[in-house]
């Protein structure tokens, strides 16, 4: 049995008289014990999807089930067994770390002691501050506490909506290490993130854009779908270079990526020579050109164009 099944979910928001499509018929399935990533920019519809799956919103059409329970009919069952960590920090700011955790444990009819082993590794990091109020914690500590609270009742499926947004790089890394440890415990994890570099840490990812899924695959599979050679170019006047390369009719796409511009040609026969020609024509200095392996973000950019 699959942990999460989403079948042709449509969700519309009515704001005054205009209707916005948040989700335009989305389908995918998540296996048990999988870390499944929903990768997409802000406004892709990630939060709407999470709220439908956690029974907080009703979809306009389509079906979805979590752990075999229908999100509409069996919402009570689902609320019993999932853990949910919303994108916005949603714990009680005026309660201490310990009080928050105790509250959520009791809410699910359990206690901290009973499931301590599950949260232990995360909780020991914030335990020294357990009498501090949640509102006074740093961003990373807040995330750890929120994760503890979502985990304390040993959920079968864990929903994490943008858990690493606004968290520093070190904490992000730690956070993902924790998720992998939870995976070993057999918990299915659905996680959303706007950061492409986190996609590689998931078992499978769905790339999402404006309410549609562009691709669902393993991170390797998604990179494998990228079937054209990818070039990187660097020179002194990067902005002018971007425009010059974009203007060339043989170029399919060119976009800035860190210190470099990534370039894809319409035909695979064009390559280094063509880029050198463009650079020479524009009289650019210190030109460096190299062939590179695509990453998830390149795939996302390519899929967005389609």
């Amino acid at each position: 049995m699959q942990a999460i099944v989403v079948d042709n979910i449509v969700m519309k928001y009515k704001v005054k008289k205009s209707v916005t499509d948040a989700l335009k018929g989305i389908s995918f399935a998540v296996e048990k014990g999988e870390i499944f990533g929903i990768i997409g920019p802000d406004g892709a519809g990630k939060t709407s999807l999470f709220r439908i799956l956690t029974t907080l919103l009703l979809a306009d059409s389509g079906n979805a089930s979590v752990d075999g329970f229908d999100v509409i009919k069996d919402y009570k069952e689902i609320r019993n067994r999932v853990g949910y960590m919303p994108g916005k920090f949603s714990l009680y700011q005026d309660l201490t770390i310990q009080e928050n955790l105790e509250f959520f444990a009791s809410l699910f009819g359990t206690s901290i002691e009973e499931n301590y082993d599950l949260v232990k590794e995360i909780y020991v990091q914030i335990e020294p501050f357990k009498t501090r109020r949640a509102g006074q914690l740093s961003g990373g500590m807040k995330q750890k506490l929120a994760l503890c609270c979502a985990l304390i009742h040993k959920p079968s499926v864990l929903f994490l909506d943008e858990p690493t947004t606004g968290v520093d790089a070190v904490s992000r890394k730690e956070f993902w290490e924790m998720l992998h440890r939870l995976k070993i415990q057999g918990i299915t994890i659905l996680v959303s993130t706007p950061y492409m570099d986190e996609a590689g840490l998931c078992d499978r990812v769905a790339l999402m854009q404006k309410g549609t899924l562009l691709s669902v695959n393993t991170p390797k599979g998604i990179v494998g779908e990228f079937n054209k050679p990818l070039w990187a170019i660097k020179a002194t006047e990067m902005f002018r270079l971007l425009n010059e390369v974009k203007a060339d009719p043989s170029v399919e796409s060119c976009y800035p990526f860190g210190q470099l511009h990534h370039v894809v040609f319409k035909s695979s026969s064009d390559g280094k020579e063509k880029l050198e020609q463009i650079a020479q024509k524009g009289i650019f200095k210190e030109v460096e050109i190299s062939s590179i392996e695509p990453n998830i973000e390149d795939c996302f950019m390519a899929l967005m164009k389609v």
Partner: protein
Amino acid sequence: MKQFLIFIKKEWLHIWRDRRTLVILIWMPVIQILLYGFALTNEVKNSKIAIYDQSRDEATTLISNQIAASRYFSLLKNVYSYDDIGATFRQGKIRLAVVFPRNFRYDLLHTNHAQIQLIADASDPNTANMLTNYATSIINDYQATLNRDVAMPYSITTQTRMLYNPELKGAYSFVPGVMALVLMLVCAMMTSIAIVKEKEMGTMEIILVSPMKPFRIIIAKTIPYLFVSMLNIACILLLSVFVLDVPIVGSLWLLIGESILFTVTALSLGILISNGAKTQRTAQFASMMSLFLPTLLFSGFLFPVENMPWPLQVISNVVPAKWYYIIVKNIMIKGLGFSYVWKETLILVGMTVVLLGISIKNFKIRLA
């Protein structure tokens, strides 16, 4: 049950840690009671008066002294002409002037009839009315002592409309009014704000995704406020008995029972408001407009409902505070038993059932 208790504990911590609100919740009724009881009463104490005594005889001196000695009046000065009275009134120094005509005692003794003129500052009609009544009753007292051992009664004309009516004593009507007001504010406004706060802070999102039944969440949230309002009631009653000298004539338990009933009415109103409101500010404003003002205007403790035009009288019937006010007045001030307030109690029960029904039916088990 354990869930329910931890929820109440959590809610109590919210209230306890938000010290500023807590202080307001506890002190507001105390201050209101003291304010209404002492400062803002309709009762007039030590009103400044002027006396224009044209006859200056034994009788007028005696009446003047009695008026000046009463706790309602204090003599500002004696004046010697009508112009003088007018000038003193215009300066706003006095609220009442007493004018004795020439030959007051002579007329009284020889024709058995005399007149006293009372001139009151009617810019505040209620006070003016009351002052003239007080003065008249003092004059009547004098007249009564005069007539005690006389065959032919003497009469001093100032019309006697009212001797002292205890129901008009300020604190008597303010205590029940403030009780209604405070319970409305604490229960309805504070609970609606507390519920909406969970929505606004996003915590509603996670507690909904839990085994706790949504409506139980709401009930658990209201219980600490029920406790706070009971505390308020106790404060108000203690103050009114020991500070304002307003006794609880009727049954204390009946009074407490009715207060709990009204609290539940207010709580269900608060839940109803929180169903619709999305932000704390909306909830606050909605409570102010739909609870506070109607309670103030229509419960009858500031403005008599009987004097309102009939459309407003009809509206006043849907204000729960009106019925609670009547109940408290009957039990606490008049000392009447349940047989005299069962109708009002039934109306409150009916309102509570309807309000709770609507709010349970409209309660959202989801976010939107």
